[in-house]
Structures are given as C-alpha cells and as structure tokens.
C-alpha cells in the first residue's frame, strides 16, 4: 500500500498535464498493475451498533474500512464483524437516516457504536453526473428531492410532483387532463426554436421524454412508478451538468430508483384511493339569460326585424336549460397500489416492486392505467467485481376524448362553455337520439347558423382515442475494483418504448361524419442503447489531499420508427376499429429517424483538508445530426468552493451561530442539441403523389453550418447552516448567457422555402436570477417536529439578438392566433395584443389604440370603412390589425416563483402543507375572448350582467351586437384579455397517522394511514380557470396562453402505507 501512496501524487501531476482520455486510461492501467502486487494482512474487528434514541440494535448498518472497499453490514441484532487490513486506521459506520460516524480503530478488535439520528439531513448523498457525492462536498448547484416526498401524491408521473420543490425549477401542468406532460424549466428558457426541457437520466441512462400519445396524451415519464424512486437530483449550473456536454444546457434531472438494504426482507405496500374533480368551471349563462342577451344583440345588429332565439321544450314539454359542463366533467375515481420487497445479503442486495394504477380523469372518458414491475439487483461477485442490473417493464394505457385546447371544434373544454344552453344533447321528440345535424350539433329549430361545434355527448359516446405503451428500461453493469480507490465500470442501458395510438371517429357525427367514419392506428417504436464505460479513482493522502478522477467514453444510439394507417368509409357501423372492414384505405404515413452520440469525458476534483475545493470537467461530444466537419464540440466547466467553517479563524468567530459556511463559484459552457434534428443539415426531397402518380418535391432547406447552441453559465453561491444545522440555507445567483441559438429563421413566405424557415445559429439571450432555499427544523424532538422549507427564485430573461434582418419571432396558438412576439431587448414569448382601453361610456364600443396612439372605436354593424372610427369623431379610421397595431403587452415569465413546504409530526401524527407560487407574470386569456364572443356562443354570466346598455354605463363589456367576434378579442388578441396571473396555490395538504409497535404476530412493522388533497386551493385574481396553464405545452415562443384549456384537477386521496 505504501508503494501506491507514493505513486499517487505523481500520477496527479501527470494528469494535470495530459487531460486526454486514453492517456488517463493508460495511466490507470499502470496503476492497476502496480496495485495488483500489493499483498494484504488482516485483523478481525467486531461489535454492535445501536441507535441513540431508543438504544435498540440497528440492523443493516454499513461498516467500511475507510479508504477501502472492505466492509460489512450489521445483522438483525446489530452485530457485525469484518476482517480489516492491518494498515486500517478508521471504520466508517453509515446508515440511511443516521449521521455517518468515523471511528478510529486504535488497535481495538471490539468496537461498539451508537449512531445518532440525522435529524437535519446533513449527510445526504446526492447523485451527480456519473457518480455520487456527499451533499456538503458538492461544488456545483444541485437540488435534491427525496422519493418519499412524492410517492403518495396522486399524479401520473413524478415530474408533476416536483412542483415547488426546488429553487430555480419551474414546473407547470398544462391542464388537468390525465398524463399530460408538464412544462419543466430549469433556470428559465434556454432556447427559442429548440427545447428548454431538461435531460432526464434514470439510473445513469438518458431516457426518452415528451408526449408519446395523440389525443390520448401520454407522458413518457409516467412509465416510472413514482413509488420506485429513491431520489431526484436536479443539476442546475454548468459545473454540475458539464459532464452531459451537448445536452446539458437545460439542466439535468437524475432519477435514482430504490435499492435494497438491510438483512431483513422489507415488504412495503403503498396504496391509495382517490377522487378527482375540475377545480373551477366557467359560469356561463343559463337558457333564460342566454335568450335575453342574444336577442338583444340581434336587435342591436338588425333592428326589430332580427330573428329571435327562444326556449325549446324537451320531450316532456319543459324548457331545455342545458349546463353543458355537466356532460363533460365528472368526479373521477382513482386507485394506486405498489408492493415492494427489498433487502440484502452480504453479497447481494435486491429491490423488487410491482405497481398498478387505475385512474379516471375529471373529464369523462379520460382514463389512465399503468402496470409496472421493477427489479434492481446488485451483486458482489468477489472482492474485485460487482455486477448489477435494473430492469423495469411498464405497460401504460391512456384513453381520452378530444380535450384539445385552442380551436378544435371537438375540444371538450371548449364545448363545456361555448354551446347554447337552450338546446340539449338529445332530440326533444322522445326518441333519445342524439341532437345532431350532420357533423355538428343540431340547432333544434333555432335561427342560428349551423353551429359547427360537435355534440359532446355524442362524440364522447361514439369516438375513442387511446394510447398503449410498453416500455423496457434496463441497465446492466459490471464494475471492477482492482485496487483501492479505483473503479472501472461498464454499463449498458436500454430504453425501448413502443407506443400504439388508435383513433376511431364515428360516422354518425363529429369529425369524420363527412368521411363516413375514420379509423387510424399508428405505431411508434423507439429504441435507444447507451453504453458507458468509466474509470474513477479516489484517493486521499494523509486525509488532507482528497482527489477524485473520472474518465469515460459513452455511446448512445437512438432509432425511432413511426408508421400509421388510416381508413375511412366504414362498411358496417358495427366496426369501430382499424382492423374492421372499411371501404377506403388512406395513404398512411411514416417516418424513420436515427441519431448517435459519441462522447469522451473526464472530471477531476480536488480538495485540501475539506476546506478548499476545486473541480473541473470536460466532455467532447460528436453528434450524427450535424454536417461533416461540424460534428464534434467540446464542453466543460469548473467550480471552486471554500468551506469557510473549516477555517479556525471563522469557526472561532462565527461558530457559535454558523455551523457551516460554504462559498461557491462555477463557470461552464454547455450545449443544447434539441433544435438540431436528425437530418437538419441536409437539403432533402420528399416523395408524394399527384393523383395516382409519384412525385418528388423539395421539402427541406438544410443548413450544413448548423451547430449546437451553447450556454455560458456562471453561478456564485453561499450555503450555510445556523444553530448546529437547525437552519440550512443556500443562496445562488446565476447568469446564463446563451449563444448560437438555433433559430428557425423566418423567411419571406414569397421565397417558398418549405415551412418558411431555415435553421441557423443566430440568436442569443440570457437568463439571470437569484435562488434561495431555506430549510428550518423549527422543532425537532422525538415527540414533535416541525420543518419548514422555503424556496424562492427570481427570473429575468432577455433576448439579445435574433437573426440579421429578423425583427421578431411570432408565436402562434392553435395554428390560428398570433399571440406572442419575441423581440430583442425583451423576454422571450412576450404577449402580443392590440392595446384596448375599456369601453367608451357614450357609445358602448371597445376603445382600441392604434400604432399612432390614436383611439379608435369599432362598430361591427357598420360595413366597409365605417367599421373603425376615430373616437374623437374625426371619421373613419384604418382597420386595427395585430400586425400593424399590436405590441407586447405582458410577459408570461414570472419574476418570482417557488414553493413553501411545512411538515409537522406529533407522536404518530404527521401533517404537510405544500404551497407553490408564481408572481409578477401575465397570461393571455383567449378563453375569455371566447366567453365574451357575440356570435351565438354562450357567454360568461359577467357578460349578461355587465354588458353596456345605455350611455354612461361604466363597464368593460361592450354593447352586444350579434356576430361581433372582434370587440371582445376573438378575431385578434386585445390587451383587455391579458391579465396578471399571480397566484399562490395550496398544492398539497396531507394528514397521516402511523401505527408502530403492532403485535409481533402481525409481522407488521408500521402502518401509516393518510389523507391528502392535491391542488386544494388557488389564491389569484386571474379570471380564467387556473393561472397555471399552458395551452401551447412546452413551446418557448408561445408560453402563457390560455386558449380553451381544460381546468386543473383537484384530487382527494386516502391511503395506507404498510411495512412488514
């Protein structure tokens, strides 16, 4: 061993000079050869481990000889024994939930140890890129969330439960539709044309993310049972993410699944049942109000000769008064179950789990089901070799009606408020038939134009949209520890995801009435393998010079096949599946994509006496989607940390208050490849048909100069513990400068470039913000504890350059409405609208402000040039348009956001209260434009009550004129519909009681019974259904839009967690 210690410092020096992969490996091999000559003498040490609180033996404690892999695990009686090398000086006792203790051997052969409970979580282990580190040793910016914090939350995927849990991490659920894909932003928007979605790494393997369904939305992350998750570590700054190189710019979320420990087999059952409801439904006019209001509007348009709407009687002769939302929303029932077995023998640890979840949504016909099984195994083959595997298989099934936000005429959320209340879903002739008129809902003799919208009851009953997935997520590894401190590891990860979507649209009515029915199936097969080989070496010299080295090579290959078929014109209405008999076969579709990464990376970290830390990492990535000569890029980062509390002069001065003070700084350059497609560099021709003959046409203007986006990330921070770590805090300031943004540079449409864009690395922007995390163990006794965790983030984003000649990038909602404008000098995705100034009290007309700042009134009933008139009476004005008169009237990016969690426990009781909040941001409520539209559409009760009627009326609802789709913002966005979205949300509330000390014959160790409310209350002035909304999903350029989105769901859950 001495030989090795002498060699090591030299090795380190050499390493500094040659930071090249292969040389490091060569050096490692030299070391190995050296190490293999070392012979060992041993000594037996034994003892008992007990807990400080109750003095009972602690089974499953990990005991290792410091600086070696020699170790043992305490048995059920707390006893252990191990044979330590004669040179061993220190034993390390570690056990989850207890403070790790180091004990000097000093020649003893019997060592009994009392472990103290880790009340303040100071010894947490955090998973970092390609390894783990002690929380306090981390020089970068990483937020950690334990699996326990989310396992009982009634969500489909873990990302939904991360809301408000970590500073700098903003998570938005687009709406309350089951299995929707949350919008995740780590430290703001990091791209414009690409994705700002982080890299998700599960047990060391980057996995597929996003939506894998069509109408039946399916989040790829739902394939991981939240109950199987041990921890989620969110890597935020470049120093933490640099090892992921070209995919690191949006941050990285590392998911680690549970592993077995403890000699006794632990059996755990977690189960709950629950209910879900829409949180808030728009209150629209009833039939009487609707008839009165619309008839008035019709008279305002056409005078006394106007047609009149009236009550329609149902089959029993009673006037119809339909509350359409009753036919769309429901109270859905849910139940979830997970059972797991875990434990370990001296050589093998295991974790096995099986889960089942079955959920109904708050929207009728919305279901989600998941069946999953997982096996995590680690086996110590011998002194040198460890083997292991994580194998998870998941079956998912989602069914949903068309919940499409924005402008779909089948969109359930929109149908809940747009349809007239004086007609019903069924015919009023007693037949029970659907009230339909071709594809649309029937008018029941009312003098509307054809309504165009569908009968929601009919399409809910008749149509069906499903997504079925099966997913294999597997990692196998082998590691070799030939000498102390050196680990060579090879790991092969598989992510196979198959998704089948089926669509059936009935011939009776709705979308495919015209085609006499439609059935379409599509199948997507995603295969990815990731092979990672690493060598890591940790060395401690005289306990003062601590060195960590890592080098690795990683390859990742992804292959994605998609194909679809469709048929129309059903032969017999019996058939409701693609496999049935249909008269007409459609063209179908398909795509094949593939991409490949080859990466070389290394990390070196050093600390002196746990006072001064320095760390650096570098990664060189090659990506297949880039043009030849451009394929490789190098990324890297470095960080410094000063543990001030380990300085004598600091601890003597401040030690009575501060138990820990660390100052950190990091810098790095990382990339974002998401805007580069598999073949973005190529000029391509696509095939098609012209009638019955084949065609070829130019369909992609590629760019061979395309490169990754790069982010220069700067971070400084301080973390400290006060009063013996009773209060722990971390404050970070970051500045993230993003350059070479890939913009799909808009081209003049007259150039006829496919898609009217060409991707190029032309833009730049920055994000900057301050993050504060504060955890306070307010009380911490064995009977009563109260912990408060607060996180607060600020965010400022500014676009600093777009493409030459490009003054703006427009964001489009639902393909129809221009809602956002990104310009230099402002945050990305600013809300674009024409300024309005309420309603003119004399005329009842909406007051618009044109580009010149002049006030213009709109008269729908006039024709031609007289529709727009200057308010000052100076005559006709040019028509107001978004292009000419629109301006950015709000920003959807919150200036402050975060969460506040409180946890109380008293005896066996526990309570939690989790809040999330977002402040100082705006939302464009397109739904409000719809709720005030003066076509036959139903309106909010506010319109009925406050619409302008007489000169002098002060209101912001203009004079109703039938068919007026402009005055309230349906035709183009107006600032009237941009509102502050600030909110504080009671995200979760729970109460539980844990029964311990149950009779031994039950074999039950503990039972926790609990109740929980998710999305309990929202405090906001926003008038829409929920200020947490994103109609445009993950879009960077069209955020902050609420256009006919479904409301959020509120869930009530009752559950039990039983440990055997």
């Amino acid at each position, binding site marked *: 061993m001495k030989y090795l210690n002498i060699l090591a410092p030299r090795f380190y020096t050499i390493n500094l000079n040659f930071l090249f992969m292969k040389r490091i490996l060569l050096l490692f091999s030299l070391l*190995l050869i050296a190490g293999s000559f070392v012979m060992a003498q041993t000594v037996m040490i034994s003892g008992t481990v007990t807990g400080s609180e109750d003095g009972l033996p602690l089974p499953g404690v990990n005991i290792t000889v410091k600086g070696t892999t020699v170790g043992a695990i305490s048995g059920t009686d707390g006893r252990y024994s191990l044979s330590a090398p004669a040179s061993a000086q220190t034993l390390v006792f570690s056990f989850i939930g207890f403070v790790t203790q180091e004990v000097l051997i000093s020649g003893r052969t019997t060592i009994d140890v009392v472990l103290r409970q880790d009340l303040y979580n100071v010894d947490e282990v955090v998973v970092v890129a390609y390894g783990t580190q002690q929380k306090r040793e981390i020089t970068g910016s990483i937020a950690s969330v334990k699996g326990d914090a989310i396992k009982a939350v009634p969500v489909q995927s873990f990302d939904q439960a991360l809301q408000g849990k970590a500073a700098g991490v903003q998570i938005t659920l687009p709406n309350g539709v089951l299995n929707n894909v949350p919008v995740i932003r780590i430290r703001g928007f990091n791209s414009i044309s690409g994705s700002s979605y982080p890299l998700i790494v599960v047990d060391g393997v980057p996995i597929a993310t996003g939506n894998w369904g069509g109408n039946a939305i399916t989040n790829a992350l739902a394939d991981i049972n939240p109950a199987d998750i041990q921890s989620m570590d969110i890597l935020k700054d470049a120093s933490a993410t640099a090892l992921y190189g070209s995919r690191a710019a949006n941050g990285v979320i590392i998911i680690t699944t549970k592993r077995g420990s403890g000699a006794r087999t632990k059996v755990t059952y977690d189960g709950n049942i629950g209910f879900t409801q829409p949180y808030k439904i728009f209150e629209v006019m009833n039939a009487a109000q609707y008839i009165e209001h619309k008839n008035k509007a019709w008279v305002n348009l*056409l005078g006394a000769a106007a047609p009149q709407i009236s009550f329609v009687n149902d089959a029993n002769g009673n006037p119809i008064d339909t509350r359409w939302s009753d036919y769309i929303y429901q109270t859905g029932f849910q139940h979830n179950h997970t059972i797991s077995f875990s434990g370990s023998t001296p050589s093998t640890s295991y974790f096995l789990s099986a889960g089942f979840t079955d959920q109904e949504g708050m929207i009728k016909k919305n279901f989600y089901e998941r069946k999953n099984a997982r096996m995590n195994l680690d086996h110590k083959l011998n002194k040198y070799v460890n083997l292991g595997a994580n194998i998870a298989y998941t079956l998912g099934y989602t069914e949903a009606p068309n919940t499409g936000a924005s402008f779909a005429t089948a969109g359930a959320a929109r149908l809940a408020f747009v349809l007239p209340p004086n007609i019903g879903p069924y015919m009023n002739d007693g037949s029970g038939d659907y009230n339909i008129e071709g594809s649309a809902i029937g008018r029941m003799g009312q003098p509307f*134009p054809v309504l*165009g919208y569908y009968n929601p009851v009919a399409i809910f009953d008749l149509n069906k949209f499903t997504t079925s997935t099966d997913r294999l997520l597997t990692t196998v590894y082998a590691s070799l520890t030939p000498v102390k401190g050196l680990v060579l590891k090879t790991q092969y990860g598989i992510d196979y995801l198959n998704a089948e979507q089926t669509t059936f649209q009935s011939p009776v009515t709705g979308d495919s*009435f015209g085609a006499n029915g439609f059935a379409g199936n599509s199948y997507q097969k995603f295969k990815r393998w990731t092979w990672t080989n690493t060598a890591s070496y940790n060395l401690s010299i005289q306990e003062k010079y601590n060195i960590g080295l890592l080098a690795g090579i990683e390859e990742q290959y992804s292959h994605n096949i998609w194909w679809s078929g469709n048929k129309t014109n059903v032969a017999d209405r019996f058939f409701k599946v693609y496999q049935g008999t249909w008269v007409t076969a459609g063209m179908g579709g398909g795509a094949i994509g593939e991409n490949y990464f080859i990466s070389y990376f290394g990390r070196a970290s050093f600390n002196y006496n746990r006072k001064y830390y320095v760390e650096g990492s570098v990664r060189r990535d090659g990506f297949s989607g880039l043009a030849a000569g451009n394929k490789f890029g190098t990324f890297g980062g470095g960080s410094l940390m000063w543990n001030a509390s380990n300085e004598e002069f600091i601890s003597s001065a401040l030690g009575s208050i501060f138990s820990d003070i660390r100052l950190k700084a990091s810098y790095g350059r990382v990339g974002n490849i998401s805007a580069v497609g598999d073949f973005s560099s190529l000029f391509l021709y696509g095939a098609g048909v012209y009638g019955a003959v084949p065609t070829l046409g130019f369909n992609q203007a590629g760019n061979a100069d395309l490169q990754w986006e790069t982010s220069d990330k700067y971070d400084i921070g301080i973390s400290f513990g006060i009063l013996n770590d009773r209060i722990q805090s971390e404050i970070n300031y970051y500045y993230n400068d993003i350059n070479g943004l890939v913009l799909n540079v808009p081209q003049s*449409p*007259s150039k006829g470039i496919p898609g009217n864009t*060409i991707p190029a690395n032309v833009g730049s922007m920055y994000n900057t913000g301050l993050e504060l995390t504060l955890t306070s163990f307010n009380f911490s006794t064995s009977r009563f504890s109260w912990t408060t965790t607060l996180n607060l983030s600020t965010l400022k984003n500014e676009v600093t350059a777009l493409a030459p000649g490009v003054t703006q990038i427009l964001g489009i909602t639902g393909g129809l409405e221009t809602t956002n404008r990104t310009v230099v000098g402002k945050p990305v995705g600013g809300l674009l609208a024409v300024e309005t100034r309420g309603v003119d009290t004399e005329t009842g007309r909406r007051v618009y402000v044109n580009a010149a700042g002049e006030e213009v009134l709109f008269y729908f009933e006039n024709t*031609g040039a007289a529709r727009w008139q200057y308010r000052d009476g100076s005559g006709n004005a040019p028509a107001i348009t978004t292009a000419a008169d629109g301006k950015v009237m709000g920003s959807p990016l919150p200036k402050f956001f975060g969460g506040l969690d409180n946890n109380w426990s008293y005896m066996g009781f526990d309570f939690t209260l989790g809040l999330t909040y977002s402040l100082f941001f705006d939302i464009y409520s397109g739904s409000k434009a719809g709720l005030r539209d003066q076509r036959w559409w139903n309106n909010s009760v506010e319109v009925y009550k406050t619409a302008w009627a007489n000169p002098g009326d002060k209101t912001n609802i203009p004079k109703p004129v039938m068919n007026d789709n402009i005055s309230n913002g349906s035709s183009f966005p107006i600032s009237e519909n941009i509102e502050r979205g600030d909110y504080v949300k009671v995200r979760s509330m729970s109460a539980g009681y844990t029964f311990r000390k149950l009779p031994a014959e039950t074999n039950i160790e503990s039972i926790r019974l609990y109740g929980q409310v998710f999305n309990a209350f929202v405090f906001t002035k926003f008038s829409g259904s929920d200020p947490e909304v994103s109609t445009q999903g993950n879009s960077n350029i069209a955020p902050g839009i609420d256009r006919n989105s479904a409301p959020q769901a509120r869930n009530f859950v009752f559950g039990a967690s039983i440990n055997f």
Partner: protein
Amino acid sequence: MRNILKISIVFALLLTVGCSKEYLDPAPQTSLSDLTVFDTKDRVVAQVNGMYAFMKSGAFLGGRFFVYNDVRADNFIPKSSNLVTNFATWNHSVVSSTNEVQNFWGSVYAAVNAINIFMDGLKTAWDGGKLTGKITQEEYNQYMSEALTLRAICFFDLLQLYAKPYNLGTTNPGVLLRLTPMKSAAGNDLARSSVGECYTQILSDLNTAESLARVNYATALDNTTRVHRNTIIALKTRVYLHMQDWATVVSESAKIVGQTSAPFSATSGVAFALNPSYTALFGTPYTSAESIFSMPFTTTNTPGGQNGLPHYYNSASSESYYLNTSPGFAYAAMDPADVRRSSLVLAGGNYFLGKYPDFTTLTNYAPVIRYAEVLLNRAEALVRAGGTVTAEAIALLNAVRTRSYPAGAYAGFATAADFYTAVLLERNIEFLGEGMRNMDLMRLGLPIPAKNTSMGNVAQITSSSTSYIWPMPANEQGLNSLLTPNE
C-alpha cells in the same frame, strides 16, 4: 497474473469502444438528397409531377383558390360563421393576418419556388450532360414548358386576389416575380413588380411554354392533369381576356377553336370539345375532352378536410355555402329547366351545388379551366373587339347555354351591351363553384355586389374600395422590407 489478465480484458473493451463511423453519418431513408434527384428519368418525371402536387395544395388549386373567388363574390351564403372556412373572405373582413390571406400566398409561392428549383436543376443537369441518354431534347423542352406554364398560373392567380385588375392601370403594384430558386437565407427582400410587368412575365412564360410544349399525351388522364400545347393556349385566352386585349383573345382562341359552328371542337392537338352532358363533367373519369386542366384526387391523395371543394359546396358539410336565391344572383337567373339549376341539391330548404358530390372521400377533381370558358372567352372577345354582335359569337354562347338549357338559345341581341350582360350571366351560371365569378367582376372593374343575408349584411365593394383586393400578407410584410402594402 489472473488480475492482470482481467484488467487487460476490461481495458481492451474500454479502448475499443469508439466512434462508429456509420453511426455518425446516417442517411435518411424516407427523403432523397438534392444530389440524387436527377439521377434517373423516373426521378425527373417525379419532380415534374411534384410541381403539380405543389399547385394542388389545399390552399391553392386543391380547392380554396376557387372557393375564395366564389365566396368573395355574390352567389353564396355560408352555413357557418367559422373563420377557418373563409367567413372573413365572404364578408370582406380579411386583414393582412387573416389565415386565407397568408396561407394562399404561402402556398402559391411554395409552388413558384418548387418550379424555379426544378427548372434551375433541370437546366444545370442537362447542360452538364448528366441527363444525356436519360431524357431526350423533346422531353427536356416539354418539362420546361410544363414548369413555365405552372409558374404563369401561379402569378396570374396571385394577381387575382392581391393586385388591382389590369384594366384599372398597369402601373399599380402587382405581385412579387420570384424567378430564381430560393434555397438559402438570402433574398428576403423583393419589391412588387407592377401589374403590367407581371402580365408581361406571365405572357413571356406562356409563350415560351407554348413553343416548347408537346402536343398531347398518351392518356386522357394526362391530357387533363398535365399541361400540353392546347392547355397553354386556353390559358392565354384567359390572360388576354383579363388584359382586355380582345383581338389577341380572338387570335389565340382561333388556334384551338377549330370549327366555326357548334360543337366548336379543337382540330389540332388535344381535341377539346364541349361534353354533351354538363353534369357528367363532374363525375368519373373527369377526363372528358372539355376538361382542359383539372387537379386530380384519389382516396390516398385528398385535398384535406377543410380545403376540398366538396367541403365547401356539398350539402352534407356543416361548413358549406349554399346559393343565395334572392333576385339578382345566379340562382334566380337560371331557368328551372336549365340542368345547371335542376341539378342543384335541395337540403334543409337551401340549394347546394351538385358538382362536388363526393363528400365522403373528397375525390372530386378540381376544374382549373374548361373548354366552355375558352368558347365564352372567344365569344366575348369577338364582340368586344368589333363592337358588334356576330353570329359566331352568338353561336359560341348558345353552344354553352343550350347544352344545359336547350330551350334557352339566344336568337340575337339588340345591342353589344346586351350581349356582354348575357355572356357574363352565362359565365356566372356555368362556372358556379369553379372560382370564376370574382375574377369576372374584377377584370371588368365591376363592384362586388352587396349581400344581405341571415349571416349578416355585407356592403357592396366598389373598385375604389381598399377591400376590393386583399391586403399584402402580414408575414410577408414583416420580413420583406421592400414590399409595398395595399393601401
């Protein structure tokens, strides 16, 4: 030693991992690289057909172009107020950012660029000898001829909606004459050419095309769905008619209207003739001698849901348009005995066109130009050129009219003006739902009549109104700094 062996194996593994060349250079399997598209004759022909496919996009000749021109004008009333199905076009409330204003422009220019890229590529490959032995000089000429004709159609159709008609002045701003391939980020800015310059370009393209064109194809389907010499001449009669160059309409139409009395069939090239049955024109196989140029559809190649003509005119569609039966519109002007009226479909108390019956599969061909139009173009030009109503003009008019309404033959006209009214009416009736009406009103500078309907009252639009033509699209205005807006 065993350790060393193990370690060596692990290292051998580690070091052999490395960059796999074939993985780093994947080739797409579903698209072709621009380097290979002139490798075979089949690919060249596929590119030729590809230009037609661009023309056939839903927003252009696949359907909507015709619909825009019909519903802007006076004959139709929408069932639905859906803005997606051209309601704003119907009530003249389009603005620069309205979808149809932007989408039509974009679709046509996508075709223009595809055509320019093809012509440029074909010429380069031909001049470079790459096509030697693969295609003949005649074939090369023919492909060029097809491309030029399609480009001329693009510019002509753009002018219909975005520029003032020729008769209101040739110096008014026309459209953008994009004549070179666009493949890179350069070239966003281009000024509009004048209306006169645009017509000069269109005629130049058509005349060159005519000189290069092939006379006919082997099948009736190709004769209807691809451009040949007589197609070009037929289009030229339309272009000159819009330019009010009556004499040239007469001389051009004389090239194909070979006979001086009914049925006026063409005597050289593809033998155009009126189809005996009006209704049969709009059914399979869609390739009668009257169907000069149509856009073909099949069940695997449809115009798309809200684009196809059946979607706009079939009674079963929730978003279709029905005929305004008030006096003064086409419906009231038709005699009940006229096939064109009797073949209308009565549904829910409203009359719908029966021309596009295939609402289920949307496979009705979209007629771009029919021989009946050439005859009426010639009839009108004969009279306008000389100022007197000739027997041939009356015979041409009657040929079209009596096919559908045998009892309706005109014996004569008191004045030339009466004849103009009659021929305009005939065109209105004959081409209902084929995109003719608005073009006819505008080429003569006539106002678009007022429409007072249950879907709202729409005022008359005179030729001096800003609403007479569409605005320049907002997305073009935002990126093309040389673009002159339509005031």
